[in-house]
């Protein structure tokens, strides 16, 4: 008898250990009133109407959105004639590209973020270096690794294309008169383009900048159309109350409901991924490793400084806003807490937008959950997240919950393809 005691105890111990790791805890019968309120707050039905953008007079103009759509899919908007906005922000991939790092005319330093629902954000880029969607839309056109074009060549393209110039004139008035030479010029370009820009008169520079800004405003009007559609989660959330049973209308499995419970509870995901878009659009340092071969980025600490001196920000000459309307820029903070902080992405359609993080450093959602469970020390400044101590089965439940957030977009299909002129 004695000789079976030790092996027996070992088997029982091993079984208990494995069970603790892998067996799910029972679910309660109902949500508490606090849990029910948190779940309801995540439903897409709670998403407020898109706020107006006072810095963009054509933000909600249909003709501007149409011009923006034409520009969005036009690969002539690049130095090599092969790159359009849609090259990286692909409609069929929820406006991402499936790559760790964006590949325009060259490989870039950041992962392509989804554009879906992004017009609800007050800040753009992972580090929030732009304070409007129209100012953001201009930067990739002139970035060497993205479109690699310059603003003068862009305006020349619009002026030469009859359809573009007619649409532009109808919206914004006459295009600026362009000098015969140089062909290319931009204050942000290479040495030659930059020198050419300096040779232009201030009036010429201002006219080109104004027209360039107007194209950005049209691209923003188009992107404001890209909104998420209701998913299985929303159907579940809209009928949740503390009186109804936890299984609700049967839209979610027990595993997915367990994941939701962790999401709003012990997983602490809702701290940052909150509201109907599952993001607070704020900046957090969560200890993600720097991209291989790159220094750890300063994140929002640098981003807010860049936004303040941006030639196209809300307070700039090219903005349509009154200074007092630039509330986000005027009251933005810039302290050390923002070192290494990147913008919280939306979790809507997250299963379809791998890989993850600002540099695409994490390949899949299981690894993302493991990252937050471990909460490693940040390479720069401090990781705001703390280790969670969740069991493997709980991490799987969180991944299962992510599956409930995917749905077709709430966009007229005509906006999702290259338009015929």
């Amino acid at each position, binding site marked *: 008898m004695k000789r079976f005691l030790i092996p027996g105890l070992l088997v029982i111990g091993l079984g208990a250990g494995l069970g603790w790791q892998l067996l799910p805890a029972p679910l309660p019968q109902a949500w508490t009133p606090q849990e029910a309120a948190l779940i309801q707050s995540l439903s897409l039905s709670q998403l407020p109407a898109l706020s107006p953008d006072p810095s963009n007079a054509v933000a909600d103009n249909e003709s501007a959105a149409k011009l923006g759509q034409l520009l969005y899919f036009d690969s002539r908007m690049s130095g090599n004639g092969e790159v359009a906005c849609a090259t990286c922000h692909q409609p069929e991939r929820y406006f991402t590209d499936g790559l760790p790092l964006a590949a325009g005319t060259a490989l870039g330093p950041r992962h392509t973020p989804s554009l879906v629902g992004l017009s609800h954000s007050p800040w753009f880029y992972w580090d929030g270096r732009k304070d409007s969607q129209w100012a953001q839309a201009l930067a990739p056109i002139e970035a060497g690794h993205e479109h690699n074009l310059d603003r003068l060549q862009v305006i020349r393209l619009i002026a030469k294309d009859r359809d573009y110039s007619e649409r532009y004139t109808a919206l914004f008035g006459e295009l600026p008169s362009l000098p015969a030479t140089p062909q290319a010029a931009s204050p942000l370009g290479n040495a030659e383009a930059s020198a050419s820009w300096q040779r232009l008169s201030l009036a010429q520079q201002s006219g080109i900048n104004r027209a360039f800004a107007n194209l950005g405003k049209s691209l923003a009007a188009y992107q404001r159309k890209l909104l998420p559609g209701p998913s299985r989660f929303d159907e579940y959330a809209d009928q949740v109350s503390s009186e109804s049973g936890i299984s609700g209308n049967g839209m979610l499995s027990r595993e997915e409901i367990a994941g939701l419970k962790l999401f709003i509870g012990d997983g602490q995901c809702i701290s940052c991924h909150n509201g109907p878009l599952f993001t607070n659009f704020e900046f957090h340092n969560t200890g993600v490793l720097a991209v291989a071969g790159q220094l750890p980025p300063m994140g929002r600490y640098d981003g807010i400084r860049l936004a303040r001196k941006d030639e196209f920000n809300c307070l700039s000459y090219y903005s349509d806003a009154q200074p007092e309307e630039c509330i986000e820029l005027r*009251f933005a903070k810039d302290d050390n807490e923002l070192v290494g902080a990147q913008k919280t992405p939306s979790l809507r359609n997250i299963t379809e937008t791998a890989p993850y993080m600002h540099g695409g450093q994490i390949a899949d959602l299981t690894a993302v959950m493991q990252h937050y469970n471990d909460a490693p020390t940040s390479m720069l400044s401090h990781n705001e997240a703390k280790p969670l101590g969740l069991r493997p089965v709980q991490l799987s439940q969180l991944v299962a919950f992510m599956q409930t957030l995917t749905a077709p977009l709430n966009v007229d299909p005509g906006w999702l393809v290259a338009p015929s002129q």
Partner: protein
Amino acid sequence: MTFRNTAAAVPLAILFMLPVSQLWAQEANYSIQTSKGSTLDVFSQLNPVVINRIHSWELALTGPDESPVTGAEIFVTGGMPDHDHGLPTLPIMTRETSPGRYLLEGVRFHMPGRWQLTVTINSHQGDEIGLLDFEL
């Protein structure tokens, strides 16, 4: 003529007073006592206060003798003690809208949970501080 002018002026006057009177009629969202026994009432222009929306607060400062404290400078800092981080914005008191009432612009909260704000006041009463603790 005088009667007609008066008749026209009354609805106009009501119209102009409406936003102010609505805020006055609103109950304070939060109310605290400062280190010198003053009362600071917070009237949020976003009512109820919810996360992720930038908005303004009106701060009504009353001294221990219950008279409005005018000409004060008010600074608001704070954050979430459980998350080891501060406010997502830098709210600033931009002006005194009426005697003892101050406009605090650029207020936003970006997480549900417990928030703790420190209000520092500099006025003819000297320096005083108040602590505002609330859940969102």
